[in-house]
């Protein structure tokens, strides 16, 4: 007896793929635990390094850069693992056998990576404030840093998902991902560090810098995610 089937919409494919990634993480807590622990360890290392710096150090000026370094390296760890389940048992090939738009695989994986990264960031940022900015105190405009945090994590998840697909079959994929990821992400990183630092310090005329940096971040996200979306079929089929 033939099986009744109705071609699912792109949205249905997206939901099924995303749900699978989230269920897998709920079962294993693999990504969240490793990324969370790694972020915590980096903060401990910061603590040890800054403890020797003395009182003249303007931690507020450095805070944006330090915070983005944690986010960047934590995301690298997560991105390296995000395709390991797919590769392990040939699961990605199983998905590629399904008649569907392959760019949806990119969107779903990037969304899952974004969710994991946002969860870890949501824990890391308050911890960072508590450990390093508790006594200094950031400018009252600091809540605006949500904007660069969002734009930055979206870009990291999008570009990172694309690059981890490219590098998953290469030798030394961990190093290869970092070698491609950091230079490609540099414009976004620069813009996000700049936007974060200026809302934490709020120097005179900071709003201009903030708006310019945010425009650059948003432009980067749109262009890079569109390029990834368009090229994904080619990359995943290669």
């Amino acid at each position, binding site marked *: 007896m*033939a*099986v*009744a*089937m*109705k*071609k*699912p919409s792109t949205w*249905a*494919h997206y939901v*099924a*793929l995303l*749900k*699978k990634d989230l*269920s*897998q993480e709920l*079962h*294993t807590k693999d990504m969240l635990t490793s990324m969370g622990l790694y972020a915590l360890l980096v903060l401990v290392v910061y603590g040890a390094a800054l403890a020797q710096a003395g009182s003249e150090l303007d931690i507020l000026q450095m805070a944006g850069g330090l915070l983005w370094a944690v986010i960047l390296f934590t995301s690298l760890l997560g991105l390296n693992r995000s395709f390991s*389940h797919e590769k*392990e*048992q*040939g*699961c990605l*090939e*199983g*998905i*590629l*056998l*399904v*008649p*569907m738009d392959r760019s949806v695989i990119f969107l779903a994986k990037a969304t899952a990576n974004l969710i994991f990264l946002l969860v870890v960031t949501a824990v890391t940022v308050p911890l960072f404030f508590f450990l390093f900015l508790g006594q200094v105190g950031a400018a009252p405009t600091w809540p605006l840093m949500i904007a660069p945090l969002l734009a930055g994590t979206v870009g990291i998840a999008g570009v990172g998902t694309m690059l981890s697909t490219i590098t998953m079959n290469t030798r030394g994929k961990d190093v290869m991902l970092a070698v491609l990821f950091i230079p490609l992400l540099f414009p976004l990183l620069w813009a996000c560090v700049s936007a974060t630092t200026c809302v934490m310090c709020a120097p005179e005329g900071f709003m201009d810098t903030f708006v310019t940096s945010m425009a650059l971040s948003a432009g980067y996200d749109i262009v890079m995610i569109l390029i990834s979306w368009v090229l994904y079929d080619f990359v995943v*089929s290669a």
Partner: protein
Amino acid sequence: MADALANEPLALEVKKLTKVFGDRKALDNVSFSLPQGAFLSIFGPNGAGKTTMLRMLSTLARPTSGTIRVMGIDAKEDPDKVRDHIGLISHNSMLYPDLTAMENMMFVARLYGVVDPEARVRELLRAVELDHRRFDSVRTFSRGMTQRLSIARALINDPDVVFLDEPYAGLDPHAVEIFDELIASLREGRTFVMVSHDLQKGFAACTHAMMLARGRVMVCSPKDELDFDEFKGLYRETVGMGVA
């Protein structure tokens, strides 16, 4: 009836299929055709191009040149339509070890757009005798059970053509027996293409046999036109030829 059979498209039609990696030809001008309901076993030494060919037939890799038609559909022109008709069982299970059997199956059923996914999944789990373990994670399954679930996964879209890539790899004799019974029960109306190193089993199961060496077809015939001892002798010779 005869007319209807004559009009039925071939399950597989491969013409001048070539795949080049760098300066190495993994497959060189391979042509063959297979009627619906046939069982083709492909043999050959490591590096002969068997898996490369299976990957191209199942749309997972693109040929450098040549054409593939599955159930009359050109794989280059309409790969998605071809994917509607095929299933692949590999030595890789394509299953997520941390998800349960049910979650794995429901995921695939939703991707294919099965109208009543739960009923279909339960039907297949019963067929592979894993319904009682449906809420257990695949990580807790033995290799044989994982392979059975992998078969159920490949059948979710009721494929006309099933590709089997070294399906006996890592199975103990009991699991092999169960696997053979399962495949035998699925034969009716389906076409199978199996890549195997197990000459005895592969030859016993097939209706057509192919020998590949260095990317070229040495023999491709209906089984009843072949003598097993001669075929075995040729297999030994081609294994001696080694990797292309």
